């Protein structure tokens, strides 16, 4: 073949097209404007969507990208939430800039410890170990009454104190924008991770571990780092939730929360970056609606969603929509 073309002339090869900037900008603008028009109840729902969207995206890092199915992911969400709450309320650490890194460090350390244990096994055993580890934390949260206030949850968590009087986050609208900024930042970080060599390596591991080893990748190390990174991002969600809700309870650390976030990822689609956000939106919306109309039947609806989500939307709602849109706009090199 001829000599490679000089860099200036070359077009960036298409690869698999990242969605162009337009949908993102549109979404960003909408999310930016909404709080100015929404009544406060809907605003809180929207805030929840962003928080859980972040949580779901964090699970996607290990579940969707790397293929590790964990039933204990809420452990990191809850751990960070608790540390943030406890450091602010019990230890009087007022500043967000101190309590948050503390909480994230806690999530990271927990993930580091859990990862070493859980990654010794795979398949069903990995499911069971992550489940058991999450439940271990749950029992601590329930029983260690003096620190965590037990089953009723740790209450009294104030809005984040940024230390800048101009940025008082006491009102729902301001808090929403705060969450929005953090969400957007995390989204951006995860998007970069997704396209980076590290991110591609995770996908490779999901598809063909043996091949990755033969190519020179230390597979265990990648899984381990991914597990910790996912734990940290989950922790971000946990901290935001603790501030938003004003409290955090053992149920947020335990199995039911882990199952919920797993469902969000599956419903929305594990293959894309924004799929889990869609899944989170769907579940939060249905839950809000159900709690108004038929509060006692919400678990039933959730259960049905599980069944429908697993049986019906095998690849997730997200990719279904993407395929449709692509069919309309594509030049035909992708058949579904």
């Amino acid at each position, binding site marked *: 073949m001829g000599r490679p073309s000089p860099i200036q002339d070359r077009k960036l*090869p298409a*690869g698999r097209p990242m969605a162009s900037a337009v949908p993102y900008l549109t979404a960003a603008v909408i999310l930016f404007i909404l709080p100015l028009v929404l009544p406060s109840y809907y605003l809180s729902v929207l805030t929840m969507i962003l928080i859980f969207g972040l949580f779901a995206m964090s699970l996607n890092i290990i579940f969707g990208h790397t293929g590790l199915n964990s039933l204990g992911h809420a452990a990191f969400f809850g751990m960070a939430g608790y540390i943030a709450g406890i450091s602010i309320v019990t230890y009087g650490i007022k500043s967000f800039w101190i309590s948050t890194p503390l909480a994230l460090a806690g999530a990271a350390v927990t993930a580091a410890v859990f990862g070493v244990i859980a990654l010794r096994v795979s398949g069903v055993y990995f499911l069971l170990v992550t489940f058991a580890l999450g439940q271990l934390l749950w029992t601590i949260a329930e029983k260690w009454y003096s620190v965590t206030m037990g089953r009723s949850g740790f209450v009294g968590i104030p809005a984040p104190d940024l230390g800048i009087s101009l940025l008082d986050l006491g009102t729902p609208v301001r808090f929403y924008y705060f969450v929005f900024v953090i969400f957007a930042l995390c989204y951006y970080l995860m998007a970069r991770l997704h396209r*980076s*060599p590290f991110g*591609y390596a995770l996908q490779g591991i999901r598809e063909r571990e043996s091949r990755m080893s033969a*190519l020179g990748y230390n597979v265990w190390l990648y899984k381990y780092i991914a597990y910790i990174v996912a734990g940290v991002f989950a922790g971000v969600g946990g901290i935001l939730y603790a501030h938003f809700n004003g409290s955090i309870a053992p149920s947020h650390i335990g199995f039911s929360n882990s199952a919920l976030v797993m469902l969000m990822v599956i419903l929305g689609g594990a293959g894309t970056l924004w799929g889990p956000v869609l899944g989170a939106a769907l579940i939060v919306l249905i839950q809000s609606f159900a709690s108004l109309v038929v509060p006692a039947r919400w678990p039933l609806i959730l259960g049905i969603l599980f069944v429908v989500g697993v049986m019906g939307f095998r690849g997730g709602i997200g990719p279904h929509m993407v395929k449709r849109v692509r069919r309309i706009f594509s030049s035909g090199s992708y058949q579904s």
Partner: protein
Amino acid sequence: MIATNEVSFRVDAGGRLVIIGPNGAGKSTLFNLLNGQLMPDAGNVFFFGQDVTRLPLHRRAHMGMARSFQLTSLFPELSVLENMMLALHGLRSSRFNPWRATLSYWNLLDKAEELLSLLDLWSKKDDQVHMISYGEQRKLEIALCLASSPRLLLLDEPSAGLTSDERLAVMEIIRKLPPDIAVIIVDHDMDLVFGLANRIIVLHYGQIIAEGTPEEIQADPRVKEVYMGMEEEKT
């Protein structure tokens, strides 16, 4: 059950060793032992003077060993180019980079173009692997091995499932490999075997029953016996 028993051989730089033998003779097991996917119960594997017997797979890759798989082992959901980029990053420290877009590494893209063009796959660079033909997948399989500029190349049945045209193309590629790398091939296709080898080893029931130049092997009565026995079983 012993899969490979008292197998001992060496390959030097520039060598073209082909291992043949009836199915079940232990050829893939041998590759797995060399490559690190299996640990031997006894014996050692030396690579350029170093004992690598207990070294994990990925570390052997860093020392210069590359391997293709008998059952195509690509990344089906990713594109041809993405597969190649994964392979190219394998030995580079940039493989841990969580920030920069993979497809922005210009120097690696150049190398990818070079390797893929060599194998006539550049035009398919954006196609997902599960959509290209089987023959193209086998070629990509080999291309991925070359990405790391290996010192030792293990090719596990490179011609399996290919049409005769594709087989010739693969043979050409192997012929054109840099002369200083060592290549060990396991295959059944006799044209390929005698066309490429400068030494042949015959395995049967996990043991070496003959070793030598192609001419020596062709003349060896024990080899004929093994293959004649196979012929008789078939009829």
